[in-house]
C-alpha cells in the first residue's frame, strides 16, 4: 500500500538530546535492523562507563562527531510505521553548524525542537525556531526533554510552555505543541508515560503518525521553471521541468517569461508517457504549438503572478565564513536562474534572542538579516509566502564557489530606478551626461557577406562626425584578441556572443555607443545578448538573401564552405535563424549603404 511521507527535523541546542531522541524512537519501535543494533551495542560499550546503550551513536556517523561527541552534519534516517513513511533529518545543535541545521529545515515539513527541561528555552532554541520559520516550516513540536532530571514536575513543564508561547506569539504556524519527554528513558517517546499522569496528550510518535500536513494540491494556475530544453531531433522540442504549482492541460495557452510570448501546450510527457494533464510535483516535458523563446531559467506560467524585476527585499541567513559586505558581487540562484547579483543594502539585522531589528553595516556567519538584493539582469521571482519555488534562493561566492547565504523573497522593490547592481560612486548616467549622449548598443545580425560591416562602419562614421563617442566591435578586433581562444563550434559561438555582449555592456556603462557586426545566427544567443544589455539593446537585421551573399563572396568563404573546407559555416552547414522582432530590418539589394544608415538613424532615433 502506498503510504504518505512525512519529512521532519529535530533541532535544539547542543546536548539537548536530539540524536538520542531519534535513536530511542527507532530502537523502541523495532525499526532497526539487527546488525545496526549490534554495532550500536558494541560502539556504545567502547567509551561508555556503565555499558548503557548510547542511542545517539546510531545517528552520529562521522568520525569527527564521534571524537567530539557532537553532531556536525545533518543525518538522514528512514523509517516507516503502519501509518506513515518518515524521513528524519537530525540536525546539529552547535551554533557553529547552524547552516547545516538550515539544510535540514529547508527539507522538512515539521520540526521537533528539543528543550532541556533543566534549562528552558535558550538562545539556540530561538535561533532554530526563527530559521525553521524562515525556511517555511509551519508545524512545530516542542519536546521538553530530560523531564526525568526535574522529577517529571508539571510546574516546570508549564513554565517552559509559557516561555514557548512567548516565542511563537505573532508567528505564522499551523501547529505548535509541547510534549514532556525523556529521550534516554523513553517517556512519551513511543508511548504515553506513567511518570507524567498530568500530561493528557499523545506520545511523540503518535503525533508524528497522525499530524495533518496540508500540501498544496490546488489545480488553479500553473507554473513551471524550465530546467532544460529537450531537443533530440529536428522535429521535437520540449521543455523539461517539475511543475511548481497548479496544473497544465494539452491545449492550455501558457506564457513564457520573461519574454511574455504565448503559445498553446501541444503535448505533455510525464517522464516517458504521454498525458493530457499534469499537476504540481510532476516531472514533465512540455511541448508548445509554436516556436517561442524558451530556455533554461525561463518560466512557463498560466494565471499565476510572477514578478519580473531587478530588485527585491529578502530575509537571509548568512552562512559564509567571510562577512556579508554591501556591494560585493555574488551569483544568485533562484529556481533555475543563475544571475549576477549584489546586496545593495542591509536594512537590518535580526537579533536572534529578542527578535529586535538592529541597524547593521555587515552581517556575520549564522546571523539573520533583511537585505535588498539587486540583480544584474531582470529576474523572475515571487514572494516566498506565495510561491515557495520562486521565492527561495541561494547566493554563491564568485571566487570560492561557496554557498554564502540562503534566503527568501519578501517582496519586490520598485521605486529604485537608478540603483544598479554595481554599487559605485560614478554611475552610467553621470558618464553619459559628461559625454553628452545616451549610451546604447546597435546589434547587427545577418549572413556573412550581407553587408553588416559596411553599414556598421558607415553608421559609426556618421555618428562620429556628429560628435558622438562610439566603438565598433567586429570580427577583426574581437576574434583576434579577447576571443582568440574560441573555435566555431556551437558552444564557442554562444560564448563568443556572450563575451561581446558583456564588452558592449561595459562600454555602455562607460557611456559609449556600441555597434556590433557579427553574424550572431541563433535567436537564443541574440536573446542572451539582449538580456545582458537590457533596454540599451537594438537589433538591426541586414536581410540579404543567401544567394546574393554567396554571389558577392567578398572573402571567398562561401566557396571554401561549399568545398567542405569550413565546418559550421552559417547558411551552408550551420543554421541562421531569422529575427522575429528586429527593431530595424534593412535590405541591401536595391538600397545603398548611406541610405540604409539614414533608415537606421531615423528608426532608432539616433
Amino acid at each position, binding site marked *: 500500500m502506498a503510504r504518505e511521507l512525512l519529512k521532519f527535523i529535530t533541532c535544539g541546542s547542543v546536548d539537548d538530546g536530539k540524536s538520542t531522541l531519534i535513536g530511542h524512537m527507532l530502537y523502541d519501535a523495532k525499526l532497526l535492523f539487527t546488525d545496526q543494533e549490534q554495532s550500536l551495542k558494541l560502539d556504545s560499550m567502547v567509551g561508555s562507563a556503565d555499558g548503557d546503550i548510547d542511542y545517539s551513536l546510531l545517528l552520529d556517523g562521522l*568520525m569527527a562527531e564521534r571524537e567530539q561527541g557532537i553532531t556536525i552534519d545533518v543525518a538522514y534516517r528512514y523509517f516507516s510505521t503502519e501509518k506513515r513513511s518518515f524521513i528524519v533529518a537530525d540536525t546539529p545543535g552547535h551554533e557553529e553548524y547552524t547552516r547545516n541545521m538550515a539544510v535540514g529545515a529547508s527539507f522538512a515539513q515539521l520540526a521537533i525542537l528539543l528543550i532541556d527541561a533543566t534549562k528552558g528555552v535558550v538562545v539556540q532554541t530561538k535561533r532554530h525556531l526563527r530559521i525553521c520559520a524562515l525556511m517555511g516550516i509551519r508545524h512545530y513540536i516542542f519536546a521538553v526533554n530530560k523531564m526525568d532530571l526535574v522529577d517529571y514536575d508539571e510546574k516546570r513543564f508549564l513554565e517552559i510552555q509559557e516561555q514557548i508561547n512567548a516565542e511563537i506569539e505573532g508567528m505564522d504556524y499551523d501547529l505548535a505543541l509541547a510534549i514532556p519527554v525523556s529521550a534516554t528513558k523513553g517517556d512519551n517517546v513511543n508511548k504515553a508515560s506513567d511518570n507524567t499522569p498530568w500530561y493528557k496528550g499523545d506520545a511523540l510518535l503518535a503525533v508524528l503518525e497522525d499530524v495533518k500536513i496540508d500540501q498544496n494540491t490546488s489545480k488553479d494556475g500553473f507554473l513551471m521553471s524550465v530546467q532544460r530544453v529537450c531537443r533530440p531531433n529536428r522535429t521535437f522540442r520540449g521543455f523539461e521541468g517539475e511543475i511548481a504549482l497548479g496544473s497544465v492541460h494539452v491545449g492550455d495557452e501558457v506564457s513564457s517569461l520573461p519574454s511574455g510570448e504565448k503559445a498553446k501546450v501541444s503535448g505533455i510527457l510525464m517522464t516517458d508517457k504521454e498525458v493530457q494533464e499534469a499537476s504540481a510535483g510532476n516531472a514533465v516535458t512540455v511541448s508548445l504549438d509554436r516556436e517561442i523563446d524558451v530556455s533554461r531559467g525561463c518560466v512557463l506560467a498560466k494565471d499565476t503572478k510572477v514578478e519580473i524585476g531587478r530588485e527585491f527585499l529578502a530575509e537571509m541567513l548568512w552562512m559564509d565564513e567571510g562577512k556579508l559586505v554591501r556591494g560585493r558581487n555574488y551569483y544568485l540562484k533562484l529556481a533555475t536562474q543563475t544571475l549576477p547579483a549584489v546586496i545593495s543594502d542591509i536594512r537590518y539585522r535580526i537579533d536572534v534572542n529578542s527578535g529586535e531589528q538592529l541597524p547593521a553595516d555587515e552581517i556575520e556567519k549564522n546571523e539573520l538579516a533583511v537585505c535588498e538584493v539587486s540583480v544584474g539582469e531582470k529576474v523572475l521571482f515571487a514572494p516566498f509566502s506565495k510561491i515557495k519555488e520562486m521565492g527561495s534562493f541561494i547566493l554563491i561566492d564568485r571566487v570560492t564557489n561557496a554557498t554564502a547565504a540562503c534566503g527568501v523573497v519578501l517582496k519586490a522593490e520598485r521605486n529604485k530606478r537608478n540603483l544598479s547592481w554595481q554599487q559605485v560612486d560614478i554611475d552610467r548616467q553621470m558618464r553619459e551626461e559628461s559625454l553628452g549622449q545616451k549610451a546604447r548598443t546597435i546589434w547587427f545580425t545577418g549572413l556573412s557577406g550581407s553587408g553588416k560591416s559596411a553599414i556598421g562602419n558607415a553608421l559609426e562614421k556618421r555618428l562620429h562626425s556628429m560628435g558622438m563617442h562610439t566603438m565598433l566591435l567586429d570580427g577583426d578586433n574581437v576574434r583576434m584578441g579577447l576571443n582568440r581562444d574560441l573555435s566555431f563550434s556551437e558552444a564557442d559561438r554562444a560564448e563568443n556572443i556572450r563575451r561581446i555582449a558583456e564588452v558592449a555592456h561595459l562600454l555602455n556603462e562607460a557611456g559609449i555607443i556600441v555597434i556590433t557586426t557579427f553574424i550572431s545566427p541563433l535567436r537564443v544567443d541574440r536573446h542572451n545578448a539582449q538580456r545582458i544589455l537590457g533596454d540599451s539593446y537594438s537589433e538591426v537585421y541586414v536581410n540579404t538573401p543567401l544567394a546574393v551573399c554567396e554571389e558577392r563572396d567578398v572573402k571567398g568563404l562561401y566557396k571554401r564552405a561549399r568545398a567542405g573546407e569550413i565546418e559550421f559555416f552559417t547558411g551552408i552547414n550551420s543554421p541562421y535563424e531569422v529575427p522575429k522582432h528586429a527593431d530595424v530590418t534593412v535590405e541591401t539589394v536595391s538600397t545603398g549603404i548611406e541610405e540604409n544608415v539614414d533608415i537606421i538613424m531615423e528608426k532608432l532615433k539616433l
Partner: protein
Amino acid sequence: MDHLDKLEAEAIYILRETVAECEKPVMLYSIGKDSSVMLHLALKAFYPEKPPFPFLHVNTTYKFKEMIEFRDRRAKECGIEMLEYINEEGLARGVNPFTSGAAYTDVMKTEALKKALKLYGFTAAFGGGRRDEEKSRAKERICSFRDENQTWNPKNQRPELWKLFNMRLHQNESIRVFPISNWTEKDIWQYIKREDIPIVSLYFAKERPCVRRDGQIIMVDDDRMPIGDGEKVENLKVRFRTLGCYPLTGGVESDAETLDEIVEETLASVDSERTSRIIDTDGGSASMEKRKREGYF
C-alpha cells in the same frame, strides 16, 4: 502522488539539474539493482532524448559472469553508450581479491575509478548511493564535491537548501551526484516491481556452486577461486542482495525466485543489506567513511 512518485520526481529533478549545469557528466553503472533503477530514471528523465551522457562501469575483472552479460545486453537494448574501465596496471601487478586484502579494493575500484574519471575528464559522476545504506553516507549531501585527488571532506560540505543545488566547480574539482539519496532498499525493490525494471538474475534464488567461508556463502563463479582445505563446493539455493566481485559478495540462502518473493523477503528481513558486503566491516564502523575520504565512491 505517493511516496515512490515523489522519490522519482526528486531524482529526475536532480538528473536534469546536473545535466543542465555540469559540463561533462557520466553515470557510474555497477550493474546492481540501484544502477538498474538509475538507468531507468535516466531513460525517463530525458525521454524522448537518450540520456545525454555515457555510462561507466569500473570492472575489477572479478564481477559475476551474469553481471557482465546483463550489462552488455542492457546497453544494447537501451541504446546507451557504455564505457568500461579496467585498471590494467593493477592487473599486471597481480592484484586480486584472494590474497591482496584491502589493496584489492583500493587498486581495482577506488584507484580505477579515479583514473577513469581523469582519463575522460568527467566533471560530474552520478552514483546510486543511498543514505540508508550506512552511517557516513547518511550524512552525505546529494552533491558531494571531490578535490583534485578525488577525496571527500565531510567537515566542509556545501549546504544544500530546498532544491537549489550549487554545482559550481573549481578547476580540477569534480562532483558526485546521488539522485537516489533518499531511497531505501525497500523503495528500490518496490519501484523495480512497479516499473518492471530488468535486474540481474543473481538477485533471484537458484542453485549455485558455493563454499561457506567466514560465516558467508561465496559463489564459485570461475576457476580462479581457490578452494581451501576443509572447504567444499556445494550446490546451495542462494540469491544475492547486493552485487559486486563474486569472491567478496556473500549470498543468502533463499527460496525467493520471483520479484514478489524478493520484495516480501526484503520487507521481512532483519539484516540490513551491507551485512553481506565484506568491505564495510573491515576496519571497524568508520571504515566506509575512511574509504570515501580516499575516493571510494
